[in-house]
């Protein structure tokens, strides 16, 4: 078994497999993410991209394989423990707390007061407020702090969700189609935001917009039918004939 505490990689995925009633959505998948890397995962629909994120963050139970984050075995941990280990995941469909304000959404994600008694006696002090305002500024929602999240536009909800992850300061951020459904202007702003936050951490992004991918990617992994089809820089992948055939088109 490979040494799972190799400091060269922040995330090591080995032989990851999940089987739903015999159908292998992810099939003996392996890839390695380095610190401060922005890895973009692309591939046709049904390739297993979202499932990979589900497996890493604990939403779905793997059938076999290993996932190590900074030496910790993620497959043995609960979802909230994985979050505390430093892995943040943004979902494909908006999953902010619709009934709460932007401020309350961010406050809920604040990395303090996560235990029962911590939450009971949690005070909304200046430190908390300052940090929330700082994040709100970064995600372009400084003017909307008291707004109920349900009333935000689709793009704003995506930003809010990114903010909810940022406030936890994760070392590995996983984003599932962050610019889906956004206007061109919103995409530009999101690309700016992501480039800023990528600087301090490792990021895995699932995306379909190739222009956007080219903007942010350090390396690209192409998934097909639950396995890695190709991996490397953007040019390498774009010129790989297998990728062209399966996904990018002629």
């Amino acid at each position: 078994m490979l040494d799972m505490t190799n400091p060269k990689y922040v995330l090591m995925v080995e032989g990851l497999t999940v089987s739903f009633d015999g159908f292998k959505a992810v099939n003996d998948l392996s890839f390695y993410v380095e610190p401060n890397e922005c890895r973009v995962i692309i591939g046709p629909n049904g390739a297993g991209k979202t499932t990979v994120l589900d497996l890493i963050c604990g939403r779905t139970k793997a059938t076999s394989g290993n996932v190590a984050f900074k030496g910790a075995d993620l497959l043995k941990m609960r979802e909230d423990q994985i979050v505390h280990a430093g892995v943040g995941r943004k979902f494909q469909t908006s999953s902010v707390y619709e009934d709460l304000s932007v401020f309350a959404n961010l406050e809920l994600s604040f990395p303090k007061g996560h235990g029962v008694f911590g939450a009971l006696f949690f005070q909304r002090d200046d430190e908390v407020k300052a940090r929330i305002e700082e994040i709100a500024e970064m995600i372009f929602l400084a003017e909307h702090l008291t707004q109920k999240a349900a009333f935000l536009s689709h793009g704003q909800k995506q930003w809010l969700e990114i903010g909810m992850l940022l406030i936890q300061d994760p070392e590995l951020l996983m984003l599932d189609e962050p610019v889906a459904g956004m206007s061109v202007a919103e995409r530009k702003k999101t690309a700016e935001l992501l480039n800023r936050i990528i600087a301090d951490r490792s990021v895995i992004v699932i995306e379909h917009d190739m222009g956007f991918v080219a903007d942010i990617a350090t390396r690209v992994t192409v998934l097909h039918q639950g396995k890695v089809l190709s991996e490397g820089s953007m040019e390498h992948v774009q010129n790989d004939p297998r990728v062209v055939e399966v996904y990018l088109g002629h």
Partner: protein
Amino acid sequence: MFSEYTASELGAIFAMQGFAGLILFSVFVLMALGLAIIFGQMGVINMAHGEFMILGAYVTYLVSNLFGDHMPVLFSGYFFVAMILAFMAAGALGMFVEWAMIRHLYKRPLDTLLATWGLSLILQQIYRSVFGAREVGVTIPDWMMGSLPLTDMIEVPINGIFVMILAVSISAGVYVMMYRSRWGQQVRAINNNRQMADAVGINTALTDRMTFGIGCGVAGVAGSAFTMIGSTGPTAGQQYIVDTFLVVVFGGAGSLLGTIASAFSISQAQSIMEFFLSGSMAKVLTLLTVVGILMLRPQGLFSLKLRK
């Protein structure tokens, strides 16, 4: 304890307890089947299930009186008429209740629980007003009375055998309907993906109503069978409701085979323990074991698949 009996006596005791357990098992199966259909396929908890059962029992009582008073010649056959009528009466009431109340609450299972509890109170009160607060006895036709001797030490009550045959045939009937009929196909389609079922033209509202009605109808037949082992009163339905729920949950909701397996184990455990302990301790231990196992394995002991 055991040393008081010879080996063959012990064997006979176990066999007879086993048979008593089988009768209990059959009643559990009949009660649980109706509930399993409704809960397993629709996710609806019907707290008034016992009262639908008692409706069947009361219908049986009425039919037995009717035949006794007006058609004594046909009395020995009344039971079959009673069962059919019980099915229809309970089924009709079930369909009405689904239309009036349940269909508004599909997305709110906890609220359905409370609303059907209210329904059970109302039904209990109606039975009390119509039939009186005291229990009524149902006269069993002659051919059902007595026992069949199997060996010189083991005797089996005939009504028990009847109930068992009934349970088996109805289970088989439900299975066939669920997995071989058009209706069953539609129910399973709706269970899997309601929106798509709607989109391909399945009348989901009507199917839901029929499903609920059939579940209640089966309860009505269980009530008919129940008249042979217990007395019928307005609150008799409450007696077995917790057991029935546990049987369904223990068997893994959505699995008919699981329900049957679960009914078997629970009824056998209880009747065997009843022999050695007092009635109430046997009940307590059985329930505790079931709850304990559920705490360790919440999807039920016999559920076949578990997808995260």
